[in-house]
């Protein structure tokens, strides 16, 4: 079975968007800075593949995942990826209440975090599941369902915006550092969540 892996680009001060993120401004004011390590591509996600080896390796790993889990805010702010994040793999959107209209393409709404992870891992088979979005990452962490984190640490302080880690309980979550890669303009830190017991 594959792992549930969080992929997020984060500033050194812990932000994943600038201020005032929303549907018209998915990464908030100035938040596009966090994606400078990606190539400036077009609509097709694959057109953002970086040229550098290390950055491309991380990108390729993300694109090799067999399912996507994301939160409603990330999904909507990303224009619902027009229904296809990559290669038509199923997208599981965690939301408190599913809208009446069905989501586009390979996306589906799920209201329970346990169901969401179970369905996504089943759909991914032997491949990993790509997790994207702060709220969903926090929900999976709290439920003990997050296996790994692949963070792209971008050398900038944004000052304000939406944080990756916020409103968590004061219980420590111990991590195992499993890999560090340096790309131009970004450090890739991979951690495994150490489960209690």
């Amino acid at each position: 079975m594959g792992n549930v892996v969080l992929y997020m680009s984060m500033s050194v001060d812990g932000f994943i968007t600038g201020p005032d993120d929303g549907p018209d401004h998915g990464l908030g004011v100035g938040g596009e800075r966090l994606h400078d390590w990606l190539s400036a591509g077009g609509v097709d996600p694959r057109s953002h593949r970086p040229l550098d080896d290390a950055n491309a390796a991380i990108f390729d790993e993300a694109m090799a995942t067999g399912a996507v889990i994301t939160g409603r805010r990330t999904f909507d702010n990303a224009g619902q990826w027009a229904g296809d994040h990559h290669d038509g793999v199923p997208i599981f959107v965690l939301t408190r209440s599913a809208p009446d209209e069905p989501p586009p393409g390979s996306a589906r709404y799920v209201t329970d975090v346990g169901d969401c992870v179970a369905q996504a891992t089943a759909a991914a088979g032997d491949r990993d599941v790509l997790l994207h979005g702060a709220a969903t990452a926090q929900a999976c962490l709290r439920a003990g369902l997050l296996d790994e984190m692949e963070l792209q640490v971008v050398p900038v302080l944004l000052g304000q915006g939406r944080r990756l880690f916020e409103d968590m309980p004061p219980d420590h979550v111990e991590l195992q550092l499993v890999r560090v890669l340096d790309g131009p303009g970004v450090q890739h830190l991979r951690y495994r969540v150490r489960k209690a017991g």
Partner: protein
Amino acid sequence: MAIIRLYMTMSLDGYVAGPRDGVDEPMGVDGFRLFNWLDRRDDPGPSGQVYAEVLATRAVIAGRRTYEHAGRWQGDHHDGVPVFVLTHDVPDDAPPGSIRYVTDVRECARQAREAAGDDDVMVHGAGAAQALLRAGELDELELHVVPVLLGQGRRLFDHLPARHVELDLVRRLVTSEPDDLVQHVVHLRYRVRRS
């Protein structure tokens, strides 16, 4: 001229102390978890190297909270180097040892650089770091990133304006995988780019 460099141990989620830090509990609830890597401060590897660099600094800048929580270092942070404590209100009693109080952040930076001469200035504490950053007086950051999420506590970066501060990575050190995974820190050194 001396470089003013922040040295701070930070959890991956950005905390430098656990919740409810105070004089009686300087690292907050369970915050001493952050300092497990210092068990290797005398090792020949990266953690020993970084710790030796801390001790080679010739002046210290700290914020008032950090200074008080640390028991005023009993007047001596290391080797009797001058310690400049940034504070809004200078206490009536004279500071101990090599401590002096400064109320203006630029004046604080100027005095610390002068005292350090050709060596470096160490900054310690979130409040002092933020004040120096806002004033454009922080040159570098050396962050010891600990493999843990504390969940709550005092953040290193908070209350900063929504203005990007670009950084350049100048060094990245990782300890070889220790027997004890809690000591497996990444030391990231960044230079603050002047806009």
